[in-house]
């Protein structure tokens, strides 16, 4: 069952990603991206990461993507104003070729990995141990993330506000 789910979800993830890069209209791409994100959320669930499953749906699909779509609506770029993308297939092809070595390399590395799995704790990936870990061991990155978001906030404000000068 898990294997089937994996194949099913990863198929959709890849399909969505592929759709995102070939579709011309930003909105279509965004919707396609949502498919990928949701499929990935499913994969998180498969991997015992229930908290991430929620975060992925709420934050990623819910917040970040909504922001994107909001921006798309806000800008409301006309079809004629959309950038022409000549030689699409050429770039697709070129990009594919350039990436072949990297993929081969990754494959080569992973087949060397042992398939043995350590036995998992009962509550692995549940919210309680995750929270405990986050606020004990990972306190520093957590605090740093808050500063990062602060910087991003200032940045967004700086760029988006009107100049008084």
């Amino acid at each position, binding site marked *: 069952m*898990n294997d089937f789910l*994996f194949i099913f979800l*990863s198929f959709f993830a*890849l399909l969505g*990603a592929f759709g*995102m*890069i070939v579709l011309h209209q*930003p909105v279509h*791409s965004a919707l396609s*991206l949502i498919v*990928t*994100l949701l499929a*990935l959320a499913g*994969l*998180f669930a498969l*991997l015992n*990461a229930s*908290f991430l499953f929620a*975060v*992925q749906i709420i*934050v*990623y699909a819910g*917040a*970040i993507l909504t922001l*994107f779509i909001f*921006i*798309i609506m806000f*800008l409301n770029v006309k079809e004629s*104003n*959309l*950038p*022409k*993308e000549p030689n699409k297939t050429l*770039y697709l092809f*070129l*990009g*594919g070729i350039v*990436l072949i070595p*990297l*993929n081969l390399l*990754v*494959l080569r590395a*992973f087949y060397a*990995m042992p*398939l043995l*799995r*350590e036995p998992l704790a009962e509550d692995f990936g549940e919210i309680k*141990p995750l929270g405990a870990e986050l606020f004990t061991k990972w306190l520093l*990155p*957590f605090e740093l*993330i808050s500063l*990062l*978001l602060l*910087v*991003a906030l200032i*940045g*967004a404000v*700086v*760029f*988006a506000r009107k100049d008084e000068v």
Partner: protein
Amino acid sequence: MIGLTHYLVLTGILFSIGLVGVMRRTNLLMLFFSTEILLNAVNIGFVAVSKFYGDLSGQMFAFFIIAVAASEVAVGLGLLILWYKRNGSVDLNSLQMMKG
């Protein structure tokens, strides 16, 4: 039996699709979309490894990466709006003032 390897291969393929997206699209918005795909690909990898080792660090990584992605998107979109208001274009090729 689906193992860690398969997840990491998925990571690799998704990552490649994202990279192709970066190279192929001229729409600035799409550039950010591609970046999101790249980040998600990495996330899957981290979470898979996390399960493999029975260690929560990987999930933490994924969690933080989502936050980093959000902050980059915030600044990036701010710039995008600024650029669009000024030039009326979301074309990557309009960003070619400096040459030589």
